[in-house]
């Protein structure tokens, strides 16, 4: 049987049954994406590879927790990858005692935030598509997404960093997500 011809859900079911070839196939499909995200956030090839490996080991261990009705295996994998990556970033920050709330993020993939973030964003080697996508968000929502998704800051940290109430951060995140969902709809439609 050619694993390449199988869809993601079937591959995941074969992973549950212990088929290494199925995991290999999922890695070939999604590994680059997970690695690229980790690289964009961590800016460290070794750390990004370590995260990518951990993500697929996690899939191997947690495949049983994926419910077939959920649908989007790719988003599930990217979600695991993203959480693993920001965990790594936060751990590195704690270790080096950097990334305090007063520190400006070192990089800002694809985004145009306000103030220093904007200047740094322009310097990043990121996809034009992402810049276009984030460009649809109002500046304050874009800033929250950049700080959370690409810089790994928690809602509390973002609130302190932007001098905004926690409720405002939550609202901006929710609104930004809604806009992304709308953008997703227009991509798929």
């Amino acid at each position, binding site marked *: 049987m050619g694993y390449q011809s199988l869809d993601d859900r079937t591959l995941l079911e074969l992973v*549950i049954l212990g088929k290494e070839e199925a995991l290999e196939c999922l890695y070939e499909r999604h590994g680059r994406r997970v690695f*690229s995200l980790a690289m964009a956030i961590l800016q460290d090839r070794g750390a990004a590879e370590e995260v990518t490996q951990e993500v697929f080991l996690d899939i191997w261990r947690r495949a*049983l927790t994926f419910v077939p009705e959920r649908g989007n295996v*790719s988003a599930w994998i990217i979600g695991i990858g993203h959480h693993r990556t920001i965990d790594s970033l936060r751990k590195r920050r704690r270790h080096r005692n950097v990334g305090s709330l007063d520190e400006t993020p070192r990089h800002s993939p694809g985004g145009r935030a306000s103030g220093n973030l904007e200047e740094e964003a322009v310097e990043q080697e990121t996809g034009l598509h992402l810049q276009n996508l984030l460009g649809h968000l109002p500046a304050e929502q874009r800033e929250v997404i950049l700080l959370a998704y*690409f810089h790994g800051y*928690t809602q509390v940290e973002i609130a302190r960093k932007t001098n905004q109430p926690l409720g405002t951060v939550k609202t901006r995140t929710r609104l930004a997500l809604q806009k992304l*969902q709308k953008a997703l709809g227009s991509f798929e439609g």
Partner: protein
Amino acid sequence: MRCEEAQGQIPLYAAGALDARQRARLESHLSRCPQCTSEVDKALTATSLLASELAEQEPSMLLKRRLLRKLPAQPWRRVSASQWEPSHRWQLAGAAVLGALLVALLAAILMLNARIGDVGEQNKKLSTLVDQRLRALEAETREVTSVISQRLTAVEAESQMLPTLAKAQTQLSQVVQQQRSLVYMLATPGVQVTLVQGSPAAPAAHGMLLTPTGGSAAFLVVVGLERLPDDKTYQVWLTKDTQRVKAGAFNVDDTGWGQARIEAGSPIVWFPFLVVTIEPTHGPPWPTGPRVLGATVSPP
């Protein structure tokens, strides 16, 4: 955690803005709540768009090999036969033959147990998969049942219209029949045409009475009357002295056009006057309602 709280945290979860403790709490809730899980999937699908728009980078060729080498036994397949092989077999080699046999026997029993455990775990896994498939099948069945139910409702609605359509067909047949009579009458030589005039109650109404010479049947065509409700009718009377004969009834369409075949049982011209009044549909054998049309059929 309740769903309300979880729903508020889902965007933060997808954006990565929860700390480890908050994330663990939400994931614990998600493991028990399909509804919130579905919301998380939508949110993750949206944020995965951010990742998919990044410039792609290639990991090391060796990463895949390292990953596959590191794959542990999955938690539900953890028990494998190789784990149960005695690691100190070499040390046992020198032991007494009886002891070796005992160890081998013990190892065989353990291996068998491990196999049984393995099979049991596999069965659990398979039954989980079967359960998931059954749930999906149930969902599909519910969907198909819903579609069938909608179709049945539509068919029922259509069937309720059948009596109305049948009534309309009957009315149409009557109109066609009357039109045939009218055409036949118009084609008869020596047809007498009498003008029918509206009364003060219906000044815009007028019409014609077509009477074949010596015939006991005639045809009345009128215009300019108002359409009556179903429980009323325009009643045609032929009168002579104090005699009033019910000679036909009709209603008009929305344009005010109406027609009726008039029959008296005697030659029409025997009656000097024709009168049309508004009566109940099954009214008494004498006029009770207002007069709307009248004509002199033959001078008295």
